[in-house]
């Protein structure tokens, strides 16, 4: 394992020190382990969090128009309730706090405990679950679908709603609407290596790929063979389309998993936009780049959200975070 780190156990702390130095306008609490922009009086606050290794998610999305705080766990390990509680208290502006939770057992349980503790302390907390990954089948009998790329859309759009003054129930409703309208599918060309173990999560042959991967280095739903970007985009979009028929205005993200060069993401985006055009959907907004990664995994995920004019307006609203900025 070759990584630009000091000691494997210190990765998260060192990265937070670096993040703090690079973003002097944000508050990084190293003790309680959260990143925040402080409270905004009267505004609903958005708090998210999850395992580290997905950067820029979530810390890179803290700032005007998006999150108020992010709680980074150890690499690929959900954060603990203490962090979430501390962050929730730190950003509560009196209008309540929305927890944006990716649907993983660990994230769900830890956020649930944090919400209970916050409730005990008199805070008003709502939670919204992101579960956009269509690669997970039979989801009613299992832990359900994972939260992946749709998280970026939920955090951006609900963040804009909160910034505009939506109350807690309305902000939560927007977040749930975005989640309901978003679907993702991921493809890995290589595994990643967790610093603490130093070993790849799975081994792939020279021509093998993993179809339907999440963002934690776990193997995918099925193993496949290397193929063209066009075909792989088709596999991902077929899966999405058969779950949620695509038409009308869509917001699309072609997201790099961490080890894939941007030039390839543009090749994929070309294929995605060709496919969608062929199926009568219109891409009105897009993101191409590394937004929710899986350490150095090579591959990409494709996320599509069916948009309404209102959601597009919220998407376009100003955002000023380390990783996403426009409009102000």
């Amino acid at each position, binding site marked *: 394992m070759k990584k630009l780190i000091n000691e494997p156990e210190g990765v998260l702390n060192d990265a937070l020190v670096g993040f703090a130095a690079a973003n002097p306008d944000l508050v990084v609490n190293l003790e309680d382990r959260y990143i925040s922009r402080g409270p905004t009086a009267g505004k609903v606050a958005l708090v998210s969090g999850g395992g580290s290794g997905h950067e820029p998610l979530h810390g890179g999305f803290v700032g005007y128009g998006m999150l108020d705080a992010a709680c980074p766990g*150890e690499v690929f390990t959900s954060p603990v*309730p*203490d962090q979430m509680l501390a962050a929730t208290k730190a950003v509560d502006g009196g209008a309540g706090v929305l927890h944006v939770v990716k649907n993983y057992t660990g994230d769900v*349980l830890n956020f649930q*405990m944090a919400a209970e503790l916050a409730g005990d302390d008199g805070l008003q907390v709502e939670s919204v679950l992101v579960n956009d990954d269509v690669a997970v089948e039979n989801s009613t009998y299992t832990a359900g679908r994972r939260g992946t790329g749709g998280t970026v859309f939920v955090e951006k759009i609900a963040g804009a709603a909160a910034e505009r003054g939506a109350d807690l129930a309305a902000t939560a409703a927007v977040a749930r609407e975005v989640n309901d309208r978003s679907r993702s599918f991921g493809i890995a060309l290589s595994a990643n290596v967790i610093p603490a*173990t130093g070993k790849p*999560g799975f081994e792939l042959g020279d021509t093998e790929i993993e179809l339907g991967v999440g963002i934690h280095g776990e193997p995918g739903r099925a193993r496949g063979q290397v193929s063209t970007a066009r075909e792989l985009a088709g596999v991902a979009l077929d899966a999405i389309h058969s779950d949620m028929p695509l038409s009308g205005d869509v917001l699309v993200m072609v997201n790099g998993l961490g080890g894939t060069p941007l030039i390839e993401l543009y090749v994929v985006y070309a294929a995605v936009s060709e496919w969608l055009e062929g199926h009568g959907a219109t891409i009105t907004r897009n993101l191409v780049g590394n937004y929710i990664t899986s350490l150095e995994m090579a591959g990409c995920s494709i996320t599509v959200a069916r948009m309404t004019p209102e959601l597009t307006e919220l998407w376009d609203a100003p955002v000023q975070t380390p990783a996403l900025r426009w409009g102000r």
Partner: protein
Amino acid sequence: MDTSAFQAWVHEASLLITEHASRLTDLDAAIGDGDHGINLRRGFQAADEMIEKSESETDTPGAVLRTVGRALISKTGGASGPIYGTGFRQAGKALGDVTDVDAVLLGSALEAAFNGIQQLGAAHLGDKTLLDALGPAVTAYQVAVEDGGDIVAATRAAADAAERGLAETIPMLARKGRASYLGERTIGHEDPGAASTALIMRALATVAAGEAS
């Protein structure tokens, strides 16, 4: 078992988990995200330290387990942190402030742990989770006690049953937790949480038998 025996259990469990951390992580890499051993080592070491430091708050067996539960929740993260944390907290609650725990009371505590975890995580037996080790362990413990066994015999029966339960997770298809995303591909692997439960039950039997390191 008195307070110091429960402290010894936590210490023994922490040692066992640290010793087997990379095996637990490897099991998790196969069907999860490869952090179970790292998570539990961090959590149990923190719990063990907290027990050593905060003597006043851990002066009964129940207090020890409740403190362990809180420590696991605060330091572990992942799915296993809240799950094991809840298990220990519920067990601790079941012990109340009794200072010397007999075989029957320990049985209720184990059952409370099982029920707490079951309620929190909504998993069923056969879903390939740590319940598939803990469930058989609790049952075997109670059968042993009903058959007149003492704590030493009953905890040994529980530990043996947890290990058999672990083996029985191999052919199961995971329906809960991160492994469930892999569907069929989980068949043929031990569940990492069941493996750590087997270690924790083994630690209990060792301590009960007075053989702890």
